């Protein structure tokens, strides 16, 4: 069978897998009865419903002709990878190295994702944004964010 809409085919599959996973996960909790619904009652019903809707989307994607085949298109792996890596790096480094290191790192790695990386601009951004964030979030709003490396603070 030929896939007629790629987007819908994969969406349908995604809904089916997630729905089944949630419904299956719900089976480890008590289901209860309609008179006394337990913790599994609602998620199980929803999971089943989601899987059902997924089947409808999937079948439609296999049956109805769509102009151009609805391709998913270019994924843009480079920006996705670099932006998400930058965020993960920030999350990993912030608790130990503090914002003074983690934030420039985030901006630097994140900027690599744009395809028009300009070193001077990025370095200026790093300095300006880090200072601005310290001023607004730490000084102004009084949020608790580790500022510098924890081993320096002793």
């Amino acid at each position: 069978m030929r896939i007629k809409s790629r987007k819908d085919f994969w969406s349908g599959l995604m809904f089916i897998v997630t729905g089944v996973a949630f419904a299956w996960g719900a089976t480890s909790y008590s289901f209860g009865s309609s008179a006394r619904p337990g913790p599994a009652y609602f998620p199980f019903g929803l999971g089943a419903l989601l899987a059902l809707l997924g089947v409808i989307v999937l079948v439609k994607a296999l049956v109805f002709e769509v102009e151009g085949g609805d391709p998913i298109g270019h994924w843009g792996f480079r920006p996705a990878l670099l932006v998400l890596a930058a965020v993960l790096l920030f999350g990993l480094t912030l608790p130990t190295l503090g914002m003074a290191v983690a934030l420039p790192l985030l901006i630097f790695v994140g900027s690599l994702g744009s395809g028009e990386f300009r070193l001077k601009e990025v370095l200026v951004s790093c300095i300006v944004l880090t200072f601005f964030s310290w001023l607004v979030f730490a000084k102004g709003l009084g949020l608790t964010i580790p500022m510098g490396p924890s081993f320096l603070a002793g």
Partner: protein
Amino acid sequence: MELLDHLTLGFGVAFSLVNLLYALAGAVLGTLIGVLPGLGPTATIAMLLPSIYALEATPALIMLAGIYYGAQYGGSTTAILINVPGEASSVVTAIDGYKMARRGRAGPALASAGLGSFFAGCVGTLVIAAFAPPLTELAFEFGPAEYFSLMALGLIGAVVLASGSLVKAIAMIILGLLLGQVNTDVISGVPRYSFDIAELTDGINFVAIAMGVFGFGEIIANLGRPAGHREVFTRDVKGLWPTGQDLRDMAPAVLRGTALGSVLGVLPGGGALLSSFASYTLEKKMRARAGEVPFGEGNIRGVAGPESANNAGAQTSFIPMLTLGIPPNAVMALMVGAMTIKGIQPGPQVMTSNPELFWGLIASMWVGNLMLIVLNLPLIGIWIKLLTVPYRMLYPAILAFCCIGLYTLNNNNFDVFVGALFGLVGLVFHKLGCEPAPLLLGFILGPMMEENLRRALLLSRGDWSTFVTRPLSAGLLSAAVLLIVLVSLPAIRNRRQEAFRDAD
């Protein structure tokens, strides 16, 4: 008169120095993100949620509200000057607004958008003040069955009025409801879907989802797109004032847009976006004056109507959130989250338990609109300069603020990782053509819906017919069914697609 007393109280609160300052901050920020394409009110409000821990509830909500309606003003500037909608709700404004700018009439286009928005904002504020109290009365009659049915109607309404595939949109809602199930069950105390991760027993933080999907996901999607050529009509913005003929043309469009927006904003799923589309379609149907510029070529009604409608809709979408505690769109879902952060349980009791907050917020909307008209017309030059900032410098800043926001939610890097994960999920949604806004709405309403469903079933001893035998609940559910049937009718389905295609 009661309304007058309420408004007096409200203006008393809104005119305090602190609240004026935060209203101004909201208006400035709103205009800023409205002008900048690629950063919307949903991501911005999500970004700012952690910082409102430090604020009082009233100024915090005044500021967040200002961002939402401020973005409606700013969005039109970008749409008119560079043919890129700064905000989704300005998509239709770009059609005629940009053509007007090309003909050297950027000034009148901006003025009609600004003046129309201001008029609509004033009317919208009055509509909220007048209709919120009676709706609150009604809400006190609601039992769990009614609340469940109302939420079902709200969720269905949110998707039938949106663009794209109906089945996929409903599936996205259910996915959102399911993600909301990752928590500790309120009734039995059993942690669900937590995989023994301590942080997950409190549930996924909705800020992490909103920022991941709307913040990171959109950045990645924008970067994957080839950079478009931007042509900015800055030097043409000289004469702002519209001619007499312009005023005569736009006045009825503003009135119609305001009326339409005020009604559509209250509907579940309504708000700024839907209102602007509906208004543009309506204006096109209206008979044109002899010699009027045709639509799509730079008709001033095509700017004034939708811009009034989206601002009116943005205002009145606060009604269901304030009176019932039920958000009609993703931004209002975040407002509910903000109230919860400040320890206020959203719902009909807010009006009586926090009258300063309730009326202060409403009055601040009028004040905010007044600030916005000043910010957006005389000071337009500042915002135009901002349009020259390239995206490659803009997005690292968004990234930085999102990450700091995520960390400070709980002073824990766990939320940063969850945000990154949802960035990836958001990218998948984007690629598969799955609209993410209904997911967020479902996520917020999920736990409330489950609780009310289970309470209703408990009360009826397991009898599902309780949802259709109680008249109010039956009415709400049949409205939901009717909506689905209506949208599935071929005639309406084609019209709906047509209306959204106009925007492309």
